[in-house]
């Protein structure tokens, strides 16, 4: 589904990613954990070319992103993304937020797109907010709308960039539940998260990143109960 080969990324003289290799298979839920500044988010953002790799390749369904920059808009339609800061469009209603891309990019009619949006909103547990503007919603509601917005493009994979880090504690659960449900439906997901409980419960595989490399990867059971790498051990002892 997604294949990452020798991925390097520098911002000026700061080297953030120092050679990442990995493959994310269809239907898999991969959680990326690690200390701040370890390059988790940068790695995730390279997967849909929001950050351009300094070198290396990212393949989606066998198509290299860096070699097909002209088709990037088409390729991005396959990859949904949810941000830490939600990034809903504040000048549009919830309904407009969700229907914009399907109507403009997939040639869907307004009615079709709205029907779909209603179904997606039901799925994320928001049924009566269609005509609200984002600033009338709570953080948890915003993030669930953001998930619905990304799903409206029928992506093959969803990227989550610390989706609960900007939320008040009591709202974290509602967003994680939606993500759990999504994982149960078989969505391929890459989740950068600090929610160790979620990673352990939902993840099929955990990547532990530190200083720009994947220091350790394993199943959640193994990685959390029996970390092999020293840095994983020290990180887990601090957060668990």
């Amino acid at each position, binding site marked *: 589904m997604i294949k990452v080969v020798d991925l390097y990324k520098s911002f000026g003289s700061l080297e953030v990613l120092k050679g990442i290799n990995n493959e994310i298979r269809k239907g898999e839920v991969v959680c990326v954990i690690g200390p701040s500044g370890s390059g988790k988010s940068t790695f995730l953002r390279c997967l*849909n070319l*929001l950050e351009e790799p300094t070198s290396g390749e990212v393949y989606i369904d066998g198509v290299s992103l860096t070699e097909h920059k002209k088709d990037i*808009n*088409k390729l*991005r*339609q396959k*990859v*949904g*993304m949810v*941000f830490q*800061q939600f*990034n*809903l*469009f*504040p*000048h549009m209603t919830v309904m407009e937020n969700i229907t*914009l*891309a399907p109507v*403009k*990019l997939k040639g869907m009619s307004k009615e079709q797109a709205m029907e779909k949006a209603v179904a997606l909103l039901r799925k994320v547990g928001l049924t009566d907010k269609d005509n609200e503007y984002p*600033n009338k919603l709570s953080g948890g509601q915003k993030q669930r709308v*953001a998930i619905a*917005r*990304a799903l409206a*493009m029928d992506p093959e994979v969803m990227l989550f960039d610390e989706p609960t880090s900007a939320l008040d504690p009591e709202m974290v659960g509602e967003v994680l539940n939606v993500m759990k449900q999504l994982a149960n439906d078989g969505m391929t997901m890459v989740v950068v998260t600090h929610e160790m409980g979620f990673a352990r419960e939902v993840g099929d595989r955990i990547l532990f990143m530190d200083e720009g490399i994947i220091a350790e990867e394993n199943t959640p059971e193994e990685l959390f109960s029996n970390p092999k790498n020293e840095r994983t051990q020290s990180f887990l002892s601090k957060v668990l």
Partner: protein
Amino acid sequence: MTEIMNIIIELSDEIYFNLIKEERYMAFVKGLGLSLQLTLFAAVIGGIIGLFIALARLTHNKTLNYIATKYIDIIRGTPVVVQLLIIYFAVFSSTSLPRTTVASIAFGINSGAYVAELIRAGIQAVDKGQMEAARSLGLSYSQAMYYIIIPQAIKNILPGMGNEVITLWKETAIAGFIGLDDLMRAADVVRGRTFSNYTPYLVIAIIYFYITVLMTMMLGKLERRMRKSD
């Protein structure tokens, strides 16, 4: 008593000679019309130029970037009167374009540089995450600009734009330099006939002022309406 009487007589004389006799108020009315027309056209031209220059400054294309930056530097670094005269005598001297058009273009080119900076700042003030969210959905750069960024930027830009139009309105007072009969020129012409010390200038000062007040009021209304959708 006689002092006050004298002042009143003098004042009514001034008004009579500068405004009423030989229908001289018509000079002011016509001048006002022309000045307003210049402001309107220049604002439209300046708005269009400003938008393109702002977008050129925001792209990563080095050539476009360079041209836009130089344009802004040159326009902001030279007096508008000089620009008007150069454009009139050098650039458009061989064309048969009406002077009003040439002046509108000249003021528009000038205003465009300032508008460009307003628009650029307004666009850059929109949160970076908005562009990323739009692009992550698969929207192209221009689609993201059109549907997501510019609608939000307009709210940031509007107050500055209002100021720019007001500035433009007063700057048109130099249109007389290329022989246009604007409001400023109307005062000169009337003064040439009546030999009044300053009454014609007082008249146009009042007109300039009240048009500005009117513009400020309309702008305030527009801003309040925009804020309602927040």
